[in-house]
């Protein structure tokens, strides 16, 4: 067992950190106040290769592994959650689902431009009446000749108004034997006729990001854009969450670190009762909790990254990593405000933004209550992983970094 990061991982970490700290941190407060996403963010992340970090070079990516993806997410969210959200939906939900489930033609058409950062992807599952209860979603996809006609509305979709493609799950069978069997997944071109999108304003957090809705009215999607088989949508959606939740977990570790760093700096500087508040034991207790929570969150996500590299199913571990880190990041942000006192309550300091941003991640990608149920299911032996028709491929550096030949053909 080796807990150290090698030179490749360290350099990835440093590179993403420098980008986020230099190019985003100085302006993020301004965009957060404006409730707009900086137009620079997506093109820069694309140009630097961050949007394709963990895809094979032959599929337009950078050929790095799942741990690199996690490290990048940590660094991004240490500056602002909205940066990591981009990774969750573009890389996690959309890109990695194409890597896992896509045919060679679909990977050529959709994954390559996503991995190169030329196109942006998102994941569209939630609706106004279906979040955690995915199997209950109402958007329909009806076969019409060789196409499908999609109708419905998706809500709370990150990058809805920015993305070119969405991995979207819709109902193809209104009366299936089991509810979950009635769903299918599609790669929907969001520039198609019948698609309208918009942003949701007035959110508690992630205000410098884009969260919105996608409305579909008789949107024609060719059969070739169906990901997986008809009726496989529930499984595809769940496996998309295994990817997305990993990025959320790693990002939340970065948010805890940001709370810790802000609190340590402030506690050394601010004096009360004739000494820096860092000397007060109750302030120390808060800082100690943040420090240990950061370590735990990091160990959990790195273990998941390692499992993904090995090609081992990680639904249980990813659930724990996501739930622990997001709960802990909310607590760390709240405690960071306590350390900052009244100043922490003002947006002159960063920690109030951290608190607002932390709350969302306890809701999306499976509420933390749902994660308790998932974990209990595994712990009680009521839930086991069934083999999927297509598993996420393990990370194999040679193949990932080969210039030609897709991942599937080489197997």
């Amino acid at each position, binding site marked *: 067992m080796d807990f150290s990061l090698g*030179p490749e991982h360290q*350099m990835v970490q440093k590179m993403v950190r420098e980008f986020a700290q230099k190019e985003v941190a100085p302006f993020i407060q301004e965009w957060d106040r404006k409730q707009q996403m900086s137009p620079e963010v997506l093109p820069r992340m694309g140009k630097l290769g961050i949007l394709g970090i963990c895809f094979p070079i032959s599929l337009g990516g950078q050929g790095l592994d799942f741990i690199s993806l996690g490290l990048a997410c940590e660094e991004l969210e240490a500056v602002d959650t909205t940066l990591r959200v981009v990774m969750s939906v573009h890389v996690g939900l959309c890109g990695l689902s194409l890597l896992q489930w896509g045919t060679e033609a679909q990977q050529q058409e959709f994954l390559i431009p996503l991995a190169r950062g030329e196109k942006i992807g998102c994941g569209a599952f939630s609706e106004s009446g279906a979040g955690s209860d995915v199997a209950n979603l109402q958007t329909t996809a009806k076969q019409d000749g060789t196409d499908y006609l999609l109708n419905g509305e998706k809500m709370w979709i990150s990058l809805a108004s920015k993305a070119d493609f969405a991995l979207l799950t819709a109902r193809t069978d209104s009366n299936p034997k089991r509810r979950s069997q009635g769903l299918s997944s599609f790669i929907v071109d969001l520039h198609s006729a019948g698609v309208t999108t918009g942003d949701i304003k007035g959110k508690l957090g992630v205000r410098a990001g884009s969260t919105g809705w996608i409305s579909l009215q008789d949107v024609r999607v060719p059969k070739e854009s169906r990901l997986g088989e008809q009726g496989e949508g529930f499984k595809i959606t769940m496996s998309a969450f295994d990817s997305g939740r990993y990025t959320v977990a790693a990002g939340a570790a970065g948010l805890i670190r940001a709370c810790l760093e802000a609190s340590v700096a402030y506690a050394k500087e601010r004096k009360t009762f004739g000494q820096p508040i860092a000397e007060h034991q109750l302030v120390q207790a808060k800082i100690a909790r943040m420090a240990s929570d950061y370590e735990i969150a990091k160990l959990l996500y790195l273990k998941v990254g390692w499992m993904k590299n090995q090609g081992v199913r990680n639904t249980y571990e990813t659930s724990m990593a996501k739930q622990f880190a997001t709960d802990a990041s909310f607590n760390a942000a709240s405690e960071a405000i306590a350390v900052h006192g009244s100043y922490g309550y003002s947006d002159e300091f960063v920690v109030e933004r951290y608190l607002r941003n932390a709350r969302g991640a306890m809701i999306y990608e499976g509420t933390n209550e749902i994660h308790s149920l998932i974990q209990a299911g595994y712990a009680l032996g009521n839930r086991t992983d069934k083999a999927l028709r297509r598993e996420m491929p393990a990370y194999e550096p040679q193949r990932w*970094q080969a210039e030609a030949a897709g991942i599937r053909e080489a197997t």
Partner: protein
Amino acid sequence: MKIVVCVKQTPDTAATLTVVGGVASWGDAPLVLNPWDEYAVEQALRTKEAHGGSVTAMSLGPQAAKESLKQALAMGCDEAILISDPALERADSLLASAALAAAIKRIDAPDIVFFGKAAVDTDTEVTGPQVARRLGWPSLNLVAAISELDPAAKTITVERLLEEGRQLVRSPLPAVVSVVKEINEPRYPSFMGIRKASKAEIPIWSASDIGLQPVPEPALTWPEVIAPVRAEQSCEFVSGETPQQQAAALVERLIEEKLI
């Protein structure tokens, strides 16, 4: 073009220098590629991109300095060489320039050698010019722009940043160019570069490999480093009922302290 860029591994600029028992210490500060050298690496890469050729990054330092060379490789340098020898451990700039010049001579016909203006730890600003002198090449320092470079005619024109303004200097190649931060904005390492750098085997040249035998003793030694005297600060309020009385009390105190 054959381009060489000399880099040094230094403590992070955020690190604090302390003096413990007359010896300077950076504590356990992270070691980084000298920030000035990032501009030199960037300029070397831009020169290659504009005129073709290859960029060799070279560093004098301990084994750990490989990490800084890897950073240069990750940014896009084609190869890296570490000059490392116990006899060179306490090199002053004269000895460092002797070692670097000897190593540069072993490279097949370089056209240009880039340096950052200074290293943030020793801050002498002379290693580049000393290397130029040893090679017998022109030294162009404080360079803020390269206005013209003609590899065929072997000429270069640079803008030097002086206090009074900018000076245009034309020189034949090969030459040694030390750059200031106004020259460019260093790029981040690319992921492709990172992958390449993390696998790179960096050759180590010893003093005998570069023909520096016997290794001269450094001319300079640092027998003691003295920390600046810590200024004691205190705050005192002068009082008085009216502004005039307050001013009078302040003047009295300042005279007492022999400050006016």
